[in-house]
């Protein structure tokens, strides 16, 4: 059985020098920035605000609501169910579609107050090894309680949308071990509706319960 090597990740934000003051500019930016920027603006909050509950929405939704004062559209963008998208390109298309539909349906064109423009950022990701290696599900459960939340973030979020794998690293590992039911349970989780600490606890509970069966 291949052991599970816990890795961790660090992000380096790169400023793209592109900004938006209104919805058409936001749409144009979303359509043209690299996918790493779409990933950054939909996952940054999870990393930076992991202690907050409820989680704030993605950057686009937050900006539309707070800077443009467009509550309905902000809510629609914030509610985009990221877990259902297999690729960042599909996620970009979803935001694009909502914004295009909105712009077709209204003539209102709010502008952000000076200084509150949306600035597009793309993160460069650095993956580091950690000393934590699990040989068995029980060891993985123990280490899950110890690793930094960045490690959790890497194996759950980065592994799927960032690196383009079909599912998160924990599900993949359990599937390879033949623990299909547990793998399915972890895949079914919507990690975007948990804080990272909440997610850690849920994972520990799922693996512990499976071990006890």
């Amino acid at each position: 059985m291949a052991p599970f090597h816990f890795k961790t990740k660090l992000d380096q934000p790169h400023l793209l020098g592109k900004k938006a003051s209104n919805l058409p500019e936001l749409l144009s930016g979303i359509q043209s920035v690299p996918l790493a920027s779409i990933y950054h603006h939909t996952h940054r909050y999870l990393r930076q605000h992991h202690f907050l509950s409820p989680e704030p929405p993605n950057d686009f939704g937050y900006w539309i609501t707070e800077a443009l004062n467009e509550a309905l559209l902000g809510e629609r963008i914030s509610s985009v169910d990221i877990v259902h998208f297999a690729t960042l390109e599909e996620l970009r298309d979803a935001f694009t579609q909502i914004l295009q539909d909105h712009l077709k349906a209204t003539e209102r064109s709010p502008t952000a107050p000076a200084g509150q423009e949306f600035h597009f950022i793309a993160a460069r990701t650095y993956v580091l090894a950690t000393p934590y290696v699990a040989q068995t599900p029980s060891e993985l459960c123990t280490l899950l309680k110890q690793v930094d939340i960045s490690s959790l973030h890497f194996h759950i979020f980065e592994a799927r949308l960032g690196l383009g794998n079909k599912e998160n690293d924990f599900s993949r590992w359990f599937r390879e071990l033949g623990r299909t039911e547990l793998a399915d349970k972890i895949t079914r989780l919507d990690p975007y509706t948990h804080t990272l600490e909440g997610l850690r606890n849920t994972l520990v509970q799922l693996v512990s319960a499976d071990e006890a069966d």
Partner: protein
Amino acid sequence: MRQIEDYIPIVGQGTVDELLQLARHLDKKVIVNINSTAVGGGVAEILSRMIPLLNQLGVQSRWDVLKGDEKFFVITKKFHNGLHGVRVEITNDEYEWFIEVNRQNAKNLSFGDIVMVHDPQPIALVEQRATAGGKWVWRCHIDFSDPDQKIWSFLEQYVNQYGSAVFSAPAFARQLSIPQILVPPSIDPLSDKNKELPESTIDEVFARFKIDRSRPIVTQISRFDYLKDPLGVIRAFKLAKKHVDLQLVLAGGGATDDPEGPVIMQQVQEEASSDRDIFALFLPPASDIEINALQRGSTIVLQKSLKEGFGLTVSEAMWKGKPTIASAVGGIPLQITHKYSGILTHSIEGTAYWIKQLINESEYAKRLGANGKQHIRQNFLITRHLKDYLLLFISLFHEGNIVYL
């Protein structure tokens, strides 16, 4: 001297281990920082804290200072004002002298594997890049959101010769041909301005200024200048005080280079003399413990600026667990997520409204303060700044969006 281990009780062993792990990737690399002042100002303060910590982590780091005559610094002061949107005239002779001083300095400097040049004053040293070799980074600490175009065009030709540029806030980014990396500034949780204080010290400071700690206190720490809007703070305080018991503390120094400063100070003093609940405290430069105590003893901290660079006083207040209400200007929205880790406002009335809300809803205020403190712990302490610098240095030797170290 502070040791990197001193930060473990604050940020955890894992964070310090991570820094040590990153530092190992810079083994045998020599990093040279160059700025234009050894003491005074934010850049010198940051470097004086960062360089010893980088060396403790095992990264060979050095700090050299550009030497210039009075004429040079008059020119660079004009650059500084022009980059902040003030109209200035710079002659061709002055541009030439600026370049000449940089060239003269280059003869006496030795450059390392990584050369980090801070702000515009030493920017033309990059002319040496081809002969000196190494990786060159321009680190810009100032607000570049609305620069004088002529000065910017002059500087841009140098900026584009660097390997990458580093800015403190997204709004300062420009359309450049080189990568632009975001590295926000940070506060040092062990400095006099931010370290934990015994309750007796806080009591003593409030007693000295005759402020009643048994009643709610809102405080703004900032220079008495127009851009910090102390008169707007007083108006917000008066609106809120119609409905809640409140005292207001305005504390800070004067702005010596602000022509409107004395007028603002006089108006603030007049307002304070007509209301016993307003305390206008003109503090001398070495008042870090007093500022720390005033923030810690306050019920709410305000930063109602009309314009800000990064506005690190907001991080200082949030680090003390204080519910913070601040204007959505400059780098403040990076520090506060509205209604999650603090309150962002746009007007005097909005500020008054939120003062009342937070006084009346103390549980919500407490939660904002707790969230704010965690946000600062993760994102605005010197350890995060160190991590960003280490990643920056490492990044210069790697390609691609995902780097496996």
